[in-house]
């Protein structure tokens, strides 16, 4: 009873029972599994001090890995936005044989374990693979180069864009397009001026989600990347390398840097969504 009296100030009264045990279980479990372990990372990182973190972050090998991770993740997310928008449009607007099967398979990168995706992409794009062999014949090398990282990150990011944009395309009102056409706009002009603007927030959210996923990705990348220091080494792999060398300070510092950037990304995604909600309610 004391709990409900003390809690009255932060919880609106309700006739439904069970709030206290439910919120209690939630908070205890969240703290034990997620918050305390993350706090340990913050504690260890703050033990290094800002100078210590900066010293690790500016090591040439770490800097190269961070640049590789963030640069290629952004490139992959942009590819995903372009092709993800086309795929979402095709799946929503057109009817063709196998559409529902294709639609279900778009989620494959969510469901397929990253290690399986990694070895599959590596075999596919290796110089003797189904796609790698013809590409090698024309002098293009994908697997075991930076291009391989791009392929893997494009794979993991695609469903984020498609699944963010698809519901909005479904909600577009056909009448607006018909009005635009009736008023004499060409189809391309209608697409650019009428259809694309309401999709922009969803495309940006998809971009941010795909980018955030790409930055943290490990399993699907390491098999196809070649993992050459300064060239094709991603930041998560460098954390593993530092751990194997018992360089806990180094691993902690890179992890802390990545965590800070992840939080900024999370905040950005929330802001984009708040902004798009405001925009929609305005219209």
């Amino acid at each position, binding site marked *: 009873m004391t709990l409900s009296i003390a809690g009255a100030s932060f*919880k609106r009264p309700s006739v439904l029972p069970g709030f206290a045990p439910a919120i209690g279980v939630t908070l205890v479990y969240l703290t034990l599994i997620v918050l305390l372990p993350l706090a340990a990372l913050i504690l260890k990182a703050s033990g290094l001090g800002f100078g210590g973190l900066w010293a690790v972050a500016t090591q040439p090998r770490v800097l190269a890995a961070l640049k590789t991770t963030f640069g290629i993740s952004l490139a992959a997310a942009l590819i995903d936005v372009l092709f993800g928008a086309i795929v979402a449009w095709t799946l929503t607007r057109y009817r063709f044989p196998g559409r529902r099967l294709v639609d279900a398979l778009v989620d494959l990168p969510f469901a397929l374990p990253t290690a399986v995706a990694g070895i599959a992409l590596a075999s596919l794009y290796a110089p003797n693979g189904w796609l790698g062999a013809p590409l090698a014949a024309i002098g293009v090398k994908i697997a075991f180069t930076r291009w391989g990282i791009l392929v893997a990150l494009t794979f993991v990011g695609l469903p984020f864009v498609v699944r963010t944009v698809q519901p909005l395309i479904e909600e577009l009102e056909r009448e607006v397009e018909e009005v635009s056409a009736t008023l004499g706009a060409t189809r391309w002009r209608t697409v650019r001026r009428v259809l694309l603007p309401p999709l922009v927030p969803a495309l940006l959210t998809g971009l941010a989600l795909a980018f955030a996923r790409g930055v943290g990705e490990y399993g699907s990348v390491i098999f196809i990347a070649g993992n050459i220091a300064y060239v094709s080494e991603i930041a998560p792999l460098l*954390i593993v390398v530092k751990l194997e060398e018992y360089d806990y300070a180094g691993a*902690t510092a890179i992890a802390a840097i990545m965590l800070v950037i992840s939080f900024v990304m999370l905040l950005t995604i929330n802001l984009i969504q708040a902004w798009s909600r405001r925009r929609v309610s305005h219209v």
Partner: protein
Amino acid sequence: MSERTIAARAADFATESVGARALLIAVSIAFLSLFLFLPLAIVFAQAFAHGIGAYFAAFVDPDARAAIALTLTIAVVAVPLNAAFGVAAAWAIAKFEFVGKNVLTTLIDLPFSVSPVVAGLVFVLVFGAQGVLGSWVAAHGLRIIFAPTGIVLATLFVTFPFVARELIPLMQQQGVAEEEAALTLGAGGLRAFFTVTLPNVRWALLYGVLLCNARAMGEFGAVSVVSGHIRGLTNTIPLQVEILYNEYNIVAAFALASLLALLALVTLALKAYLEWRIVGAVAHGRAR
């Protein structure tokens, strides 16, 4: 002439030409083939590259069997825990109004924005030899890092949000009217929960459990950091796949990988089915 032909002509102008449509479909299918369909196909092609006998021989290996057993054990421990948490969190967040709800929702989603490698690292920093609780763990003769316990913890972390984030939006949409009616009619809180709330969200719950399970069995990065890769003891299926692949034991690697790929395909098929049921449940909730 008639109204219908005019409307039909307007609709023609309000869509792409046949050529543009064909081009967009072709681009979509080509892109998805390069990045999705061919990688999926090559898993099975490589697994059966030396025939069915070689495929099944891969599962006779005791290390492979130990990996399968460990993966199943991890899922059996981790998935029910996260499902129970998900239901509790959804009950508190969807059915009540309280201060700090948005912060709590964001914190629940937090593990999705943490790199799997970092998720593994945080447990090394807590329970490892140099960790915050490292000396306490050693003094009590416990083994957490490089042991199945650490793998369970890392798996709990990465699969933490799956069930909660499926349940919360649906339970919010369904509101509290049905539970209030049950209470008015004399049902106790638990009875209202088990006869009203749970049946209303059963498909979403199953869907969340399914996604949680797929990730728990397939997690690689986080588990790789805490496992120590001890053959027969701390190797899950994905870790065993990595070892076999790096030893150029391609058929065995892809044979084990094909189990996980099958799990992914079953998950996607059930997901498609359950999404159809959830749409039904939402429509049902709105109709009330």
